[in-house]
């Protein structure tokens, strides 16, 4: 359930609206590095248990 948080449904949007959405909320990759650290830590915790 990694991407359950894709709250905003962008299907059927025109290009201007899509561009605005991306300019405002990013392409979803801006903080991927932090989410990756989060996942790695969870993995480690699971292994330790």
């Amino acid at each position, binding site marked *: 359930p990694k991407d359950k948080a894709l709250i*905003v449904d962008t299907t059927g949007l025109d290009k201007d609206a899509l561009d605005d959405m991306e300019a405002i909320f*990013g392409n979803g990759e*801006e*903080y991927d590095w*932090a989410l990756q650290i*989060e996942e790695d830590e969870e993995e480690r915790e699971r292994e330790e248990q």
Partner: protein
Amino acid sequence: DAAVKNPGKRRRKKDDIDLEDEIDEQIATLKVAMEKACVADNEAREKGQPAVHKLKLLPQVTALLNRTAIQDSVLDPETNFLQSIKYFLEPLNDGSLPAYSIQRDIFTALAKLPINKDSLLSSGIGKVVLFYTRSKRPEAGIKRIAERLLGEWSRPILKRTDDYKK
């Protein structure tokens, strides 16, 4: 097509100019301090020390955000105070989130502000709010506010598409 901006939007009364300049200056000074605090907190983390610099500034930051009389200055895309707010909310270099009280106080204040598209575009604050909806680290109450903001901020953009279709 974005050429039709609204130059007179921030029309000021002459008497208010001094006060507004003063507030702009106050915001500019705080912005510099906030950015330094973000760097200092990251350095502290790397040395294994507690990150307290942002926390120390938090009362000043929330005081400005919560002063309704100066909302125009706070939300002005040129002053771009919201960009510094974005830095405050960003995860630190080790992936950890800023202190809970920072998250709580700032998200609570953001929820009360009438943030428009221009300040969203110039600040990039929507990106960090999106991150809070995706990360598992924030507490449920914070995530709820983040999700609500995401909905509120995207609604006018999504709605515009609907309007065109009609």
